């Protein structure tokens, strides 16, 4: 069996925001910690991100928004995931998000937002504890034609 037991995480930049220092650091730290990481690059629309997440069959997505557009972009991503029946993908994020916006984002389904000062080990530890394998069986079938 060609099972890859590693958790798969999409790290993405959504919207026009070009601040990718944090996203790249997180992508690299998660990769170094043993996760499989897909980095989307810049200027992704919520639709593009969700399509990639589903195509790549990820277990979680970490989205970085430093432009202040988080209240628009996160809920959009979550509602698209629900529309496509992929709401079990764990969504977390990072960026300049004021405390008062947190409750709304959590209510929309974001599991956790990391704000300035979070360390890479905080993020790694959180992912280990909060991101379960998703549809592992199906993925194995999907990746190994012999099992179909």
């Amino acid at each position, binding site marked *: 069996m060609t099972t890859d037991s590693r958790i798969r995480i999409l790290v993405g930049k959504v*919207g*026009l*925001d*070009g*601040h*990718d*220092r944090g*996203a*790249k*650091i997180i*992508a*690299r*730290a998660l990769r170094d910690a043993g996760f499989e990481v897909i*980095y*989307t*690059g*810049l*200027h992704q*629309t919520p639709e593009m991100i969700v399509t990639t997440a589903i195509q790549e069959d990820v277990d979680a997505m970490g989205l970085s928004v430093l*432009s*202040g*557009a988080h*209240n*628009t*972009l996160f809920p959009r991503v979550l509602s698209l995931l629900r529309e496509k029946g992929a709401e079990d993908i764990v969504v977390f994020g990072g960026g*300049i998000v*004021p*405390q*008062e916006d947190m409750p709304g984002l959590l209510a929309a389904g974001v599991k956790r937002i990391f*704000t*300035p*000062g979070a*360390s*890479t*080990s905080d993020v790694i530890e959180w992912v280990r504890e909060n991101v379960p394998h998703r549809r592992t069986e199906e993925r194995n079938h999907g990746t190994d034609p012999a099992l179909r």
Partner: protein
Amino acid sequence: MAEVRKSRSRKEWEMNTLGPALAGMGERQREFSTVSSFPIERLYAEEDLAGWWDAGRDADAPGEPPYTRGIHPTMYRGKLWTMRQFSGFGSAADTNSRYHYLLEHGQMGLSVAFDLPTLMGRDSDDPLAEGEVGREGVAIDTLADMECLFDRIPLDRVSTSMTINSPASILFAMYLAVAEKQGVPLEKLEGTIQNDILKEYIAQKEWIYPPRPSLRIITDIMAFCAETVPKWNTISISGYHIREAGATAVQELAFTLADGICYVQAGIEVGLDVDVFAPRLSFFFNSHNDFFEEIAKMRAARRMWAGLMRERFGAKNPASWKLRFHTQTAGCSLTAQQPYNNIVRVTVQALAAVLGGTQSLHTNSLDETLALPTEEAVRIALRTQQILAEESGVANTVDPLGGSYFVETLTRRIEEEAAALMEKIESMGGIIPAIEAGFPQKAIADASYRYQQQVDRGEKTIVGMNRYQIEEEEPVETLRIPIEVELTQKKRLAQLRASRDARRVGRSLDTIERAARSGGNLMPPILQAVRDYATVGEICTTMKRVFGEYREVSVF
């Protein structure tokens, strides 16, 4: 009287005085280094300067090449640096009131922050603009917004800096059109457009077209300004964003000067006289936490640029040799934790910029890791500069650190390291091939990851964040941009589209497209299109048809 033991050489001192001290209690760390991990020695003394430091060349002559000690003979005794706070948010009217507020409080020049859609050449009603309108800067779609932005601000009496890159030609044309409406002759206008596309590919990531057509737009602007707006600074060659993206001080310096070389070459290649356009190039550096490293970087930058302009490009006009620069304190150094500590960081960084000989300065506000700054936070930031300028005494003499063993040696070391990195870029064929190969992008990503690991391991201290933490108190008050700003701006844009002469707009966009294809200077047709109230997005879309769009190969 007891006999005083005095060492006659470094060796002797090390044996007699240092040795016992080290044996007794040692030092705090095994090695010391700057925030960029540049190694720092225990002591710098006369012998560190021996053999290369020429008092005649390096110590005596501010206002003379290579300008290590400053580009003006009197520096801040003659004129203080320009205090220029970067600001923009919400609608043009919101930002216009902030400008009046800043000018009333003693700010000397304006600096426009545009919102992301504007920076990316998109209109407020573009689908990708959703949620971003007016949020990180002011939303400008057409000349009507620009008229509102500079309402009751006489453009012949302020100098204006505009942080705009890919669509710089368009926003600059709008500024010129506002000046025309105010009756101000264009040759009187003073200011700067950032217009530095190369650092967009390297660090800031707000691009539209690929590098080569982008360079052509820039040389069009340089040629147009030489004729029509001679006092305008056509490019602000920026290390700031490179540093914010995680570069070291040496990388910031090397990549910025490499970008500068590319612009000068491009200007010469299209037949412009280097001594006409080079004096209108200015620079923009970051001032980070490591005090002496920043000062040394700024001093090295001046010396290196003077050498490049004279020797490599054969510039004859001393104004071409002088590296003039703006500085902003390092946004990435600020912490969300115990945010009032940021005032202190900004003070130290601003002091470094002043001792580094900056021509203008933006000091960040204490709340900028949380949101755009409030009026009170901006006022404290401006007052920080005023206290440095008018209370501290540091502006009373030229280059007070000149001749310091440490500062001179560090200046030299940073110059050598940056020159080696620039050699490497040259060997790749210059900065554009280097960008296409992802070289600076990868170098910055590596440096930023290394620094983050040092912070996470506690090897580099960030006070209040990885040391001296407290239970965080109530968050400070921040500026909120209501979502209504976006709705109002979209409505305003829709009304404008309905009321303007659509046929004129169509014709002026066609003229831009023809100029883009034929190679004619783009500035005159862009100026006509903005007078006709064509939008930023319409003009960019027109040019994209000819120039295409840039796609990045992402590396992490």
